[in-house]
C-alpha cells in the first residue's frame, strides 16, 4: 500500500477515533514507523477532532480545574506512583558555582587575616627570642664570672682553713693609720696570699708593694693590684719570713723598700 492509499482508506481516522480493531491499530503503528509522514496526517486528524469537540456548549467553570488539581494532589499521596520533578528548581550548577565563589572569597579573606596575625606573632616571637638569647649570654657570662670567683673563694677558703697556714694581721701606720690587711702564709709550701680587705686605692701612679722580712732584710713579695675589686691575691713564694710589710712605691715596684712610705706592718 502506498502512503496515499493508506490515507485514502480511512484507516488513520478510525485509529485516532479509537474505533479501529486491535489488528488495525498495530498495523497503523507499524506503518508510522515505516512512513513517518503518516504521523503528520494523524496529527491533523487529531487536531480537527479536538477542535470540533472543544466547541463546547458552555465555557468550562474555572473552579473545575482547581477542584481536579486538588483531587490529584490528594490521590498523589495515596497512590504515590508518579515521580514528582519540581519545575521551578533553578539549575543547580549555577547555584553551586556562586556558592563556590562566595566560599572561596570568604576563605581567602579569612586566610589573609589569619596569615597577617600569624606574621605579626612570628615577628613578636623572634624579637623575644633575640632578647632571651641576649639575656642568656649575659647570664652565662655572669655565671662564668661567678664560677671563677667561686673557685677563687673556694681555694681561698681551703687555703685559709689549712692549719699550717699562718694568718698575719698587718696594722696600719703613717698614711694608713686605722687601716688593716691580712697575709696568709704557708711556711711549708712558701705560698703567700694577700687579703687587701678594705684597703683604700693607692695614690695616683703609685702602687702598694708587699715585702717579707727574712733574716732582718726586706725581700720583694710582689706588687699588690687592687684592680677589678679583687681583694685576695696570690703573691710570690716566701721562705723563712719573720714579718711582712707594705710600702707605697712607684708603678712597677722598687727593688728596695722606701722606709718613709711604709704603711702596713705585722710580725709572724
Amino acid at each position: 500500500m502506498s502512503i496515499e492509499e493508506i490515507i485514502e482508506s480511512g484507516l488513520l481516522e478510525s485509529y485516532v477515533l479509537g474505533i479501529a480493531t486491535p489488528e488495525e491499530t498495530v498495523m497503523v503503528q507499524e506503518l508510522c514507523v515505516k512512513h513517518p509522514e503518516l504521523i503528520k496526517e494523524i496529527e491533523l486528524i487529531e487536531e480537527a477532532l479536538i477542535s470540533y469537540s472543544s466547541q463546547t456548549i458552555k465555557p468550562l467553570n474555572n473552579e473545575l480545574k482547581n477542584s481536579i488539581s486538588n483531587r490529584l494532589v490528594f490521590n498523589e499521596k495515596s497512590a504515590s506512583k508518579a515521580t514528582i520533578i519540581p519545575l521551578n528548581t533553578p539549575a543547580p550548577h549555577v547555584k553551586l558555582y556562586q556558592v563556590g565563589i562566595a566560599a572561596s572569597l570568604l576563605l581567602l579573606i579569612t586566610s589573609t587575616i589569619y596569615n597577617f596575625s600569624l606574621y605579626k606573632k612570628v615577628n613578636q616571637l623572634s624579637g623575644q627570642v633575640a632578647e632571651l638569647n641576649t639575656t642568656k649570654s649575659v647570664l652565662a657570662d655572669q655565671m662564668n664570672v661567678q664560677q671563677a670567683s667561686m673557685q677563687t673563694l673556694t681555694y681561698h677558703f681551703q687555703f685559709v682553713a689549712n692549719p699550717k697556714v699562718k694568718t698575719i694581721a698587718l696594722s696600719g701606720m703613717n698614711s694608713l693609720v686605722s687601716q688593716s690587711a691580712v697575709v696568709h702564709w704557708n711556711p711549708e709550701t712558701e705560698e703567700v696570699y694577700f687579703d687587701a680587705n678594705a684597703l683604700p686605692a693607692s695614690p695616683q701612679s703609685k702602687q702598694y708593694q708587699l715585702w717579707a722580712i727574712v733574716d732582718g732584710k726586706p725581700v720583694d713579695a710582689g706588687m699588690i693590684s687592687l684592680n677589678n675589686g679583687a681583694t685576695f691575691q696570690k703573691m710570690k713564694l716566701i721562705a723563712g719570713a719573720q714579718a711582712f710589710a707594705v710600702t707605697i712605691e712607684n708603678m712597677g715596684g722598687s727593688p728596695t723598700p722606701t722606709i718613709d712610705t711604709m704603711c702596713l706592718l705585722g710580725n709572724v
Partner: protein
Amino acid sequence: MYDNYSKALFGVINNIVNDQEESEDVLQNVFVKIWNNFPSYDEQKGRLYTWMLNIARNMAIDSTRSRHEKIKHKIQETTDSVYHKNNLFEQNSSHENIGLQNIINNLKEDQKQIIDLAYFQGYTQEEISQKLSLPLGTVKTKVRQAIIMLRELTKNEILQ
C-alpha cells in the same frame, strides 16, 4: 494537559451525558483516572488523545448507565443525540459558537451522524456498519470524508 484537552474531552462527555453538571463530575473523574493510570499508558498502542478519549467515553457511558437512563440509549436512538446536539447548539447560537454553528451546518447529515457515532458514542466500525446498514469499507470512507470536512471547516474557523 488539562488546558490542552479538557475542552475537547468535555465536549465528548457532554455529548454523551447531556447534562452540564454531571459532565463536569465525569470530567473530574476522567482526569483523576488519567492521572492515576498514566504510568500504564503505552505509546506503542495508540495516541495519547485516543487513550484519553477512550477513558472519557467509557466513563461518560458508565455514568449515563448508572443514572438508569435507557441502557440501550446509544444503540437505539442515535437521532436522539443528534437532536440534543442540534437543540443545544441552537440554544447557544447567540454566543461565541457561531463558528461551530457553521461547522455543524456545513456537515452533511450523514457525516454528522457518523462522526457522532464514532467520536462521541465510540461505536466500532462494525456497529456503525450494522447501525447504518453500510458495508465496512464504506464506513471507513465516510468517516474519512466527514473528518476531511471537519478539517476544512476547523481550518477555516481558525483562519477567521
